[in-house]
């Protein structure tokens, strides 16, 4: 099934920091509940997180939000350091993690400049009442292994299956909602776009082409590292800064 190059476009300008994507991801992917102590211990698992930065001096303070998930790098630094091939780049342009193989050296996490690889320090636990809400399509990861955003690969697989049964293509318009990862579907402001960069007719390809032009807003994160990410960010349109710049 070679050919796709799944990727995402994040329009930072639209992000309002509501964290809906985070919650959607948690419930879609069987991520244990992050309690306060997990955050205090810095062991919370959030496959997608919204980083918040404060800008400016009081009273002129602005909150800036940027959603960060696995960038599914073309030349991912996390992949070659794994001694057991637990992570590699598959032929759909995804950086995949094989839980069975992982032995938990945490080397990949160290070499990931985006901090998007998470380690299961404990056996995951859910309150009794939530036992029946686990997604049957997603593995519950045991302790001692790494996990990270998969671009909801289970949804991609399911959509492909449905599409091929219907004799259609997974990238067709009608399958868009079922193909999109949970975070994309949950986003109220259409900050996130998901699609196939190899398909010249896809929405993301069109956006990429438009925004990569000279005055476009496209950039990738930590470009100087040469990781060649599969997630493209669109710069914030900063009216205020422009006003300041132009007097």
């Amino acid at each position, binding site marked *: 099934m070679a050919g796709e190059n799944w990727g995402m476009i994040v329009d930072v300008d639209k992000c309002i920091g509501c964290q809906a994507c985070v919650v959607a991801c948690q419930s879609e992917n069987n991520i244990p509940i992050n309690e306060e102590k997990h955050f205090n211990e810095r062991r919370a698992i959030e496959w997608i997180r919204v980083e918040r930065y404060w800008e400016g001096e009081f009273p002129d303070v602005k909150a800036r939000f940027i959603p960060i998930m696995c960038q599914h790098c073309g030349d991912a630094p996390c992949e070659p350091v794994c001694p057991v091939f637990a992570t590699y780049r598959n032929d759909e342009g995804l950086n995949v993690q094989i839980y069975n193989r992982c032995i938990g050296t945490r080397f990949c996490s160290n070499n990931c400049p985006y901090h998007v690889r998470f380690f299961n320090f404990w056996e995951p636990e859910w309150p009794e009442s939530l036992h029946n809400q686990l997604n049957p399509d997603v593995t519950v990861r045991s302790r001692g292994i790494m996990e990270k955003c998969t671009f909801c690969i289970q949804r991609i697989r399911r959509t492909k299956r449905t599409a091929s049964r219907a004799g259609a293509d997974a990238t067709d318009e009608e399958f868009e909602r079922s193909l999109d990862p949970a975070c994309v579907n949950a986003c109220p402001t259409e900050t996130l776009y998901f699609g196939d960069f190899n398909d010249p007719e896809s929405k993301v390809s069109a956006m990429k082409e438009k925004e990569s032009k000279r005055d476009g807003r496209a950039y990738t994160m930590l470009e*100087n590292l040469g990781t060649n990410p599969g997630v493209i960010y669109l710069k914030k349109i900063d009216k205020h800064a422009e006003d300041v710049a132009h007097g």
Partner: protein
Amino acid sequence: MASGNGAHGALALATPAQVNRDLLERHQRRTGDTYWRAMALFGALFVLGIIGFLMRLSDGFSDKAVWGYYAAVFAFILTTAQAAPLVAIAPRIAKGHWRRPISRAAELWSVVGLFNLLLFIPLLWVLPSLEDTRRTLWFFDAQDPNFSQVPIFSPHIWATLALVGLVVTGFMLLWVSALPDLAAVRDSASGWRQRWAARLAPNWQGTSQQWNFLYHRTGILGAFYFIMLIFVHFLISVDFAMALVPGWIDALFPITHAANSLQAGTATLLLTMFCLRQFGGYKDYIGLDQFWALGKLMFALSLLWFWFWFSSFIVLWYGKKPSEQAALQLMMVGPYLPAFMAAFVLNFLVPLFTMIWNPLRKSIWGPTLIATSILIGTLFDRIRIYVPAYSVPGIGNRFVEKHELSEVPKSILPDMADIFMIVGAIGGAIFIYLLASKVLPVINVWEQKEMLLYRVHKPFHRIEVLVLGKRD
């Protein structure tokens, strides 16, 4: 190790007095034809080099790219001739007796430092000032108020001072360690030699106080020469090569640059020894012992060459940052691949696969040939570093991206002037060395005499063994 009784430099002369007489006689003997022929040859090359330099000078300093080969030659002399004295210093500190016959030949190379200092002067005009906000050792950054407190000509000023310091230290070391020999020349020679020796060593009488002074000063000056050499390599390799390539950050490079000079310095000395033995008539003094010991040292340093190179390479190769890829492309795998391969083969592969054979290490020709290979390899190595670094467009232009090399420039082949300068500078260095060898005895007379005290052949039951004494 196999028994080496017969392998030590044959010492037909048994007493210090004999050694003294013999060596001083050799030093003052009427100069032979070989010497004059060599002088003529290298003098001619030297003239050729000056012609090449004038040709290059006519191009002016505005285009740095054409000066790449010149910088490479300067670095080559720094790496070879100026490092050779270390080969005398290190074994002296480790109290190795085998170094005694060759320590003068090594120290004499510090004379060439003066020549290299002259070679350095044009580079001061070639290297742009710090105003282009490139990276530098001196943290100059016009935009950043914290980093703009240094003169914009810092690299030029401090590198010059350091180089002058190195040359002065070299001369001091040469002079102090030659004092007893100069006194001997003063007492036995006649004519200009006597006058010069008397001027240089007016009151050396050989009191124990003077000897202590000598041991002490040679130790300190030797250590200081070593430190200065590392420091000069540091300044030159960073500000005169690394900082010119945007995005090239290699913390090991200055140390590699210096480590290469140890290897090349050993090779230089080996070739010098070979010439002294073969053409200078010092067969009785310079023997298998010296070649063997230096051969082993050179072998070890050749392995280190690989280790230093690989330590840098694997980090840059694995890291795969675009800036790192560009730097590798520029100096190793891109247009300068042939030069790099030559350096790799001649500096590492050839020594590795030949010098692991002890019979080859323990011969006269073996180490000599490998030393030649290493010197040629070092020249290629310097070319593949300095020529591309100087050819990067935009040095000195403050509007060019300084963090990443966006486009790898094409390779530059040496033109006539470059070739003239390469042979001329090497010829000139040898020419100056030959001149200096007439002023001072090329074999250290006092060390040679001292060795007779500490090195005794004794019977031990059924064999004769060599007993080496080590002074505390």
